């Protein structure tokens, strides 16, 4: 009890150094502890808040763990069918050219079922932002193999590890879209350390700022963990991600046009 009283003395407005971002709703996130979605949601909302574009921004949620992103982001949002977010975003932006439009998609959504929508929105140079969360697994449906699952990685549908001969190669879709003339900015980031969070925020800010240039699509991949799906503790998952995911999905800018 003594500790509680002491905390009450400390928790005063003048001592506040960290709080919920205004543009995140008060709803409790449904994400697993240690998951990167919550951090990424916060970064996006911070950027929108700092740019003062809440009333000009329309977000598109995917199908996957972040299907309910619209419950947490206090902006107008649409829920897309699995993989179709870039198609929705295309029309939203074309019909509302003054708006900031972004999609938030996982690896199954963006790089498997929505490959065509992703590639063609990038290739047309739609003036939108795509935020791509790559954790190499289907989290929501219970941990099945994703297009980005690494070789040898175990999931519910490759319980003995991904066998390239049988199941094909993990897809580096971010490198792929960087080849397309319609993409302006393509980068790969992470949110597992404070430094990584700062770099990701800078990248997302740049992506949203790019919308004003009207010169093409900005694509931000965030390599993240899925500790539940990977069957690890959050700490183990982050360490495993650094050791195994980053060598195959190296962090940093892939394409920066002005």
């Amino acid at each position, binding site marked *: 009890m003594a500790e509680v009283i002491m905390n009450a003395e400390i928790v005063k407005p003048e001592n506040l150094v960290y709080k919920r971002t205004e543009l995140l*709703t008060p709803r409790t996130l449904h994400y697993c502890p240690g998951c990167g979605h919550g951090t990424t949601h916060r970064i996006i909302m911070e950027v929108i808040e700092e740019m003062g574009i*809440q*009333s*000009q*921004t*329309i977000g*598109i*949620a995917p199908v996957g763990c972040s*299907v309910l992103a*619209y*419950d947490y*982001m*206090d*902006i*107008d*949002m*649409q*829920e*897309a*069918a699995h993989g*179709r977010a870039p*198609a*929705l*975003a*295309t*029309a*939203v932006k*074309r*019909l*509302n050219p003054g*708006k900031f439009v972004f999609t938030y998609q996982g690896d199954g959504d963006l790089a498997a079922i929505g490959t*065509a*929508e992703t*590639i*063609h929105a990038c290739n047309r140079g739609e003036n939108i932002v795509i935020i791509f969360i790559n954790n190499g697994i289907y989290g929501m449906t219970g941990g099945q193999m994703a297009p980005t699952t690494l070789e040898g990685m175990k999931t519910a549908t490759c319980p003995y590890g991904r066998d390239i001969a049988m199941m094909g190669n993990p897809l580096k879709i971010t490198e792929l879209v960087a080849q397309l003339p319609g993409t302006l900015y393509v980068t790969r980031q992470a949110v597992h350390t404070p430094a990584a969070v700062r770099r990701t925020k800078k990248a997302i800010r740049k992506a949203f700022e790019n919308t004003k240039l009207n010169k093409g699509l900005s694509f931000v991949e965030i390599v993240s963990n899925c500790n539940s799906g990977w069957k690890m503790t959050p700490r183990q998952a982050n360490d495993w991600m650094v050791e195994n995911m980053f060598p195959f999905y190296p962090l940093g800018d892939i394409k920066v046009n002005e």
Partner: protein
Amino acid sequence: MRELKLMKGNEAFAEAAIRAGADGYFGYPITPQSEVMEYLMAQKPHERTGMIVLQAESEIAAINMVYGGAATGKRVMTSSSSPGISLKQEGISYIAGAELPCLILNAVRGGPGLGTIQPSQSDYFQSTKGGGHGDYRLLVLAPSSVQEMADFARLGFDLAFKYRNPVLVLSDGAIGQMMEKVELDPQRPRFTDEEIKKNTPWATTGKTSDREHNIVTSLDLESTRMEKHNLDLQAKYRLMEEQEVRYEEISCDDAEYIFVAYGTSARICQKAIQLARAEGIKVGLLRPITLFPFPKKILNKLAKKTKGMLVVEMSAGQMVEDVRLAVECQVKVEYFGRYGGIIPSPDEVVAALKKQIIGG
């Protein structure tokens, strides 16, 4: 003043859509309706009215562009033909679930599968019973002339917004490709931002401080709320059944027999009526204009004063099921049709009437 022009059905549909104040068209080429996008692109509606026309990478992308655009309160549309409409079913189900207004044209071709490019009416079940997954209905308009192709573009948009529901115009290659004179409405302005905010307050136009954030979704993981949503949808469909039934009666006043047919088949039946009446057979035509809601009451009424009905369809017999349900066994209801891209001849129709209804 309406402007008089000679146009193909598909072109009339496209022109009328521009004039109805459409904001966006998203499509993918497929015979026999490619003229819709070709005409729109040639017209540069972006310069005429600011309307956006975009050729998508697939029918799937096109219908999801329609979802995205409709969710911002815009008048948006797509068009396709049977195999492409099958691809769109996922998106149509989401649009119906999220209660978004939009206009869809299906220029039906013979199926199943890749089928043929010739006209058909074999997508009746898909069009009127839902089509994709879940309990939903489209409001279905069946034009039988180039004039109606034009009229139903505007009517379709208006009904779509009235009910926040997708409206399907069910046509075929014959109606779409034939040229007829058509009277076109004058240009109606596109919605202004203010009108969108006022008329579609649910639209995702950007959250402002005077309201909660708008979410357009077909998802609700709480099943009691999802049941309530479904009950609301069903109530909307019942309201359409009360308010939106449309049909045309031709030579029904003294008729002893009735043809029931829509679209191209109805045109064939009009000629068949002339041939039959020249032989002294008193036959009329009930032409459903809305296929959902279906004109049940008038069919039930006509059954009370006639001796039999022949349902003429370019399918293996789909609408005949709805006619039989409406007629409630009061008179004999038989089906006659050609399909796989074949249009029946008026002589065939008269012969079927004699054999299956009068002589049967």
